[in-house]
C-alpha cells in the first residue's frame, strides 16, 4: 500500500519535473506566479491555450490555487459548525438509541455521490438562490436566531410539553420546527426586502457594496461541499469526544457543571487534537473534491474575495482540460503539477491528522492503563 502511495508520488514527480528542467522545456517558471499585464492592471490568468503560441505564457496557477482554497474554506465554514455541533450533541445529549441510528444515517449522507450533489447545487439550488436571494438570506438569519429564542423560551414551556420535548430527542422533534421556521422565513422575506432593500436585494447589494451576485458562486459550492464533508468531520469528531475518558466528564458534572460546560471546559480541551484532525481530514476532502466544484462553481478563474463570485479549482481544471491536453506538453505537465499539488496537500494534511489521532489514542489508552 505504501507502494501505491509512493507510486503515485513518483509518477507525478517524474512527469512534472521536466517542467522545471532549465533546458528541456521552454516554460518559464515565473509564469506560474507572475502576473502578466494585460489591460493596465495586473491580473493572474490561467490561459492554457495560449501556452504555445504566446510570447509570454499566461498560465498562472495562482487563481486556481486561490479558487481551491476559497471553495474549501467556504465548505468548512458550512461544515464545521454543523458537524461539530452534531458531534457535541450526539455525544452528550442524545438518547443512545437515536445515536446508534444517527451515525449510519450520516454515513449515508457521506455516500451521496458528488456528481449528484454538484448537479443539484449547480442546476437546481444555484439558480433558485439567485432568484430568491432574499428568502435564502432570510433563512440563514432566521434559523439560528429562532433556535436561540427557542432555547431561551424553553423554560417557560409547560412541564408536560417539556417532558415530551427533551433535549435527548431534540434532533428529531426540531425537524418539523425547523421546517416551519424555514417556511416562515421565506414568507416574510418579500416583506423585509421591500422595507429595507427597495424590493430588490440583488440590486441593492450591487449598488451599495459593489458585490455582484452570480448564480454559481463560492457560497453554493461551499454549501454543497459542506454537505459532503459534514459526515466525515462528524464521525471523527464524535469518535474523539467519545474517546475522552468518561471519568473526566463525570467528575466535572459531579462538581455541578452543566453538560455544555463539561464539553467546553473539560472534554473539548482533551479531545481538541482529535477534533482538529477531523477538521483537517474534512479540509483534505474539500480541497480535492472535483465534481461539485466543476458543476456548481462557474469555473471562472477569478481571484476575488467575494463569496458571490465564481471560482475555479485545481481539481476541476484537471478534469476538464487533461483529456484534451497533449501528453508531454507544457499544458499536460502544468495540470500534472496541479495534481501533484493536490496530492501533496492532502498527503500532508492526512498524515498530520493521522499522527495526531494516533498520539491521542495512545495517550488515552495509556491513561486507562494507569488507572
Amino acid at each position, binding site marked *: 500500500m505504501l507502494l501505491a502511495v509512493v507510486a503515485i508520488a513518483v*509518477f507525478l514527480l*517524474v512527469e512534472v519535473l521536466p517542467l522545471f528542467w532549465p533546458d528541456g522545456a521552454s516554460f518559464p517558471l515565473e509564469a506560474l506566479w507572475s502576473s502578466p499585464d494585460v489591460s493596465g492592471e495586473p491580473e493572474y490568468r490561467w490561459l492554457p491555450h495560449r501556452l504555445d503560441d504566446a510570447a509570454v505564457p499566461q498560465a498562472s496557477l495562482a487563481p486556481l490555487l486561490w479558487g481551491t482554497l476559497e471553495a474549501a474554506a467556504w465548505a468548512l465554514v458550512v461544515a464545521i459548525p454543523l458537524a461539530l455541533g452534531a458531534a457535541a450533541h450526539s455525544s452528550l445529549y442524545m438518547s443512545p438509541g437515536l445515536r446508534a441510528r444517527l451515525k449510519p444515517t450520516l454515513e449515508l449522507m457521506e455516500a451521496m455521490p458528488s456528481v449528484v450533489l454538484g448537479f443539484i447545487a449547480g442546476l437546481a439550488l444555484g*439558480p433558485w438562490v439567485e432568484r430568491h436571494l432574499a428568502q435564502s438570506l432570510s433563512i440563514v438569519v432566521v434559523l439560528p436566531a429562532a433556535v436561540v429564542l427557542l432555547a431561551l423560551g424553553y423554560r417557560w414551556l409547560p412541564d408536560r410539553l417539556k417532558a415530551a420535548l427533551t433535549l435527548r430527542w431534540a434532533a428529531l422533534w426540531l425537524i418539523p420546527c425547523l421546517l416551519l421556521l424555514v417556511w416562515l422565513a421565506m414568507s416574510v422575506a418579500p416583506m423585509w426586502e421591500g422595507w429595507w432593500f427597495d424590493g430588490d436585494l440583488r440590486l441593492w447589494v450591487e449598488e451599495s457594496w459593489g458585490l455582484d451576485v*452570480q*448564480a454559481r458562486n463560492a457560497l453554493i459550492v461551499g454549501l454543497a461541499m459542506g454537505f459532503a464533508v459534514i459526515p466525515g468531520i462528524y464521525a471523527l469528531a464524535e469518535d474523539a469526544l467519545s474517546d475522552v475518558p468518561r471519568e473526566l466528564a463525570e467528575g466535572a458534572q459531579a462538581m455541578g457543571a452543566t453538560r455544555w460546560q463539561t464539553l467546553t471546559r473539560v472534554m473539548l480541551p482533551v479531545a481538541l487534537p482529535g477534533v482538529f484532525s477531523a477538521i483537517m481530514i474534512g479540509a483534505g476532502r474539500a480541497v480535492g473534491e472535483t465534481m461539485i466544484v466543476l458543476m456548481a462553481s462557474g469555473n471562472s478563474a477569478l481571484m476575488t474575495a467575494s463569496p458571490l463570485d465564481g471560482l475555479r479549482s485545481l481539481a476541476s481544471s484537471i478534469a476538464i482540460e487533461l483529456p*484534451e491536453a497533449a501528453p508531454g506538453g507544457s499544458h499536460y505537465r502544468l495540470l500534472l503539477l496541479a495534481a501533484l499539488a493536490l496530492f501533496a496537500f492532502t498527503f500532508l494534511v492526512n498524515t498530520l491528522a493521522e499522527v495526531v489521532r494516533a498520539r491521542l489514542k495512545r495517550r488515552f489508552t495509556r491513561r486507562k492503563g494507569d488507572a
Partner: protein
Amino acid sequence: MSRLSRCIGALKRTLLAPSRGPRTLSIAVSGEAPAAVSRVAPGAVSRVASRLVSGLVLSAMLVSAKVAAHDVAGSLDAIGSDTMAELMLRWGEQFEEQRPGVRLQLQVAGSASAPPALIAGTTLLGPMSRPMQEDESAAFIERHGYAPTPVVVGKDALVVVVNRHNPLSRLSRAELDAIFSDTLACGASESIERWQQLGLERPGGTIHLYGRNAVSGTHGLFRRRALCDGEFKVSVMVSAGSAAVVAAVGDDPAGIGYAGLNHLNADVKAVAIGNAEGGILPRRQSLRSGGYPLSRDLLIYVNRPPEGELPDVERAFLDMVLSPSGQRVVKELGFVALPPSVLAAQRHALGLAELPRDGP
C-alpha cells in the same frame, strides 16, 4: 478445444494481417479540441517504467487483443464532440436501416483524433467541426501523396444569447468584443461591464458572462472571430457544454453567453450581430449566404485518391449524408442544411449520382 484453436487461429490472422472486413465502415469523428494531437505518445520517463508493468499485464491482454485489432480495423471511432457526434449517430442509424447488416461502430470519446486516424489510414472518413489545420493536412499529404477531400455536410453557427426578457436585440462586433474581452482587439474604446453602458434600463447591474471551457472548439472559434483573437475576461463563467451556457443564461436575467446554433431554445434570445445600421440574425438565409459572421462548416474529411474511387460502403454512406433524407437529420438536430446548389456541387465532386429533380 476446437473452439480454442479457432480463436488462436483468428488471433494469429488478425495480428499478422489486420485487414478491414468486407462490410464494415470505419469513421473517426473529431472532437472540438483546437489542436490535433495524437494522444498515444506517453511521457518519456513513464514509458520505461510502464514497459516493465505492461509485460506483466500482457498475458491478461492476449485474450482481448484479437478483438481489439479486429475492431480498430473496422470500427467507427466516433469521438464525441458536442457538435458532430449525435449527427454521426443518427446518420449511422439511418444507414443501418437502409442496409441491414452493415456494422456501424461509433465510439464517442472527445478529441481531435480524426486527422491522425485519416493519416494512418485507419479510417477513410473523418468528420470535423473545423477545417483541418495546415500541419494536419501537410502530414496527410506527406503520407498519402494527395490532399484530403473536405466534404461540407452542414452549417453551424455560434449564437450570442441573452435572457428571454432582455430587451437587447443587436450588438455591433466592437460592442460584443468589449463585453467579452478586455483586450479590445476589435476596436472598441472601453470595456463594457454594465448593461447601462449599452443604453439599457433593464436588466440592471453587471453583465454576467457565460462561455465555454478553453479546450473546446466553440471557445476557440468565438475567440478568433468575435474577439478578433483577443482574450476573454477572467470573469467569464466557464461551462463544460453549450447547453449549460444556454441554461445558465435562461436562468439569469443579467446573463449573456454564446452557444452553438443547435442549442437555442425558448429560454434565451439570439442577438443579431452587425454594425450600427443593422444586425444579422443567425437564420438559414444568412448562414447559407455567409453573411452571419460567426458561422462554420460541418465537415467530413475523406481520404480519396485523385483518380480512385471510395470503397462501396463509404461511398454509400456519403451518398446518404448528402441526400435529402441525410440533410433532414442535419435540420432536425438544429443545424442548417445545405442549399441544393451546394449539395449538388458536393455530390458532383465526389462523383455521386445526381439527385432526382423533385428535391426534398
